[in-house]
């Protein structure tokens, strides 16, 4: 892996007990924009999904309001995902380190982190989630456009759109459940990093050692 693009942030201290900048302000803003748009689509989408969850529509102003805004918020989510893709697509390529890490994923699940190969800025699981959301949003956008203008498309496309929209939505929900769990409960410090941007050096060394070494040791121009 080449050092030039691993780190979007440059402000580091690297001192023990000090902090490392993990997410820049613009990265955090787009993460939370995406979260906001996705959350709206999730609540309204679940309302349309099952009669037993239709009451969720009341939380956002009722069924007709939910139906009106759902596609627009979907476009908002697409825009924020597009931005996240622009920021992170290079960081999200699978590396040799990822393949070694994936082989040892059992240790990660069991919190046996000492026996894990070191990872870069994002580990393989994070990359997987990123790509699930990227491909998910592409499918949701295309099928959602069909459902938005359902009268204007042929029957086979209506049925295909429904199938794809539901399947892609469920896949992203599955990813989201794991993402939220890991970002809040499982990996302590992860949540504050996406809120305030910084992690402790110990956190960086524990979870993303290759990245930590790069941001602390390699000065610009020293590879």
């Amino acid at each position, binding site marked *: 892996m080449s050092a030039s693009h691993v780190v979007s942030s440059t402000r580091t201290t690297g001192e*023990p007990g000090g902090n490392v900048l993990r997410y820049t302000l613009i990265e955090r803003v787009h993460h939370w924009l995406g979260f906001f748009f996705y959350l709206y689509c999730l609540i309204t989408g679940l*309302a*349309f*999904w*099952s*009669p*037993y969850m*239709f009451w969720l*529509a009341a939380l956002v102003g009722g*069924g*007709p309001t*939910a*139906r*009106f805004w759902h596609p627009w918020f979907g476009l908002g989510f697409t825009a924020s995902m597009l931005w996240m893709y622009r920021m992170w697509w290079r960081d999200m390529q699978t590396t040799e380190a990822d393949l070694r890490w994936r082989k040892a994923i059992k240790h990660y*699940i*069991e*919190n046996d*982190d*000492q026996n894990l190969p070191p990872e870069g800025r994002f580990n393989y699981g994070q990359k997987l989630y990123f790509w699930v959301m990227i491909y998910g949003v592409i499918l949701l956008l295309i099928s959602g456009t069909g*459902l938005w203008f*359902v*009268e204007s498309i042929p*029957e086979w496309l*209506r*049925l295909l759109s*429904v*199938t794809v929209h*539901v399947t892609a939505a*469920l896949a992203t*929900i*599955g990813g989201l*459940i*794991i993402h939220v*769990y890991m970002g809040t*409960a*499982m*990996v*302590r*410090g992860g949540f504050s990093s996406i809120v305030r941007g910084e992690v*402790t050096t*110990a*956190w960086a*060394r*524990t*979870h993303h050692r290759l990245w930590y070494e790069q941001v602390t040791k390699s000065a610009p121009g020293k590879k």
Partner: protein
Amino acid sequence: MTQTALQIRRISGHPGPVPGEGVERAEQVCKLVDTTTCIGCKACEVACLEWNGYTFTETTFDNSYQTMPETAWNYWNLIKFNEHEREDGTMMLLMRKDQCMHCADPGCLAACPADGAIVQYANGIVDFQQEHCIGCGYCVSGCPFNIPKFNSATKKMFKCTLCSDRVSEGLEPACIKSCPTGCLHFGTKDDMKDLAERRATQLRENYGISTAGVYDPPGVGGTGVIYVLHDVNNPEAYGGLPKDPHIPWVVKFWKGPAKWIGNFAMLFGVVGVTLHYLRYGPKEVHEPKKENGGQP
């Protein structure tokens, strides 16, 4: 268009049991359209507009009698004309009054996610309740007859009500009342089936139309609008009447097993991460023993 006088037996998007589930009035209402005596005068179209308070919309011209290609949100009843060529090369003008078929097993109602936006009354009429409609258009995907139409101004779906307001007061639908040839009949399903079968028999035996028959498709549980056709084996010739209509299997799967698979998967995910936390807890951050001390 809620009719308090009519008891409801099916409700769209409704969690839990429906109060009137399964109830049927002794008499299911039914409209019989005899295409062999229809003259295509469009009186039924006018009566429909008049009774339901709509005005004429701009029509299209495509070198035929066809006023417009299909029904619209404010045009629920349309004669479909087809210049049909018989096998011997002679022409025949097929005319069919197209409107909601009021299926016994309605696909629109199955697909609808909004509680109470589509109901089926105990007398068999399928009716849209615009005050509960969210305008999602799922009913369009569920309908095998291309009937529900979207009003982009009000963001609600509309279709023929079988004049549920008139029927609840003991009147026949407006279209029936206006028909000058008597090709439209309204009554109980049993009576209409009987009348239709007798007419089809008459056509076969007295008029030599051996293919005459009754269109009451079983794929949607039978319909509240039935047709007598000259050629029951070729309903498509009558402006695209589907030969074997049924709720699309995708819609059935989506509204049936997919719900439970999806709900179970989501529940599995939430329970799974919770169990993981109970078993393994949060990840520890390893503080290094000394500065730059190799493996922490």
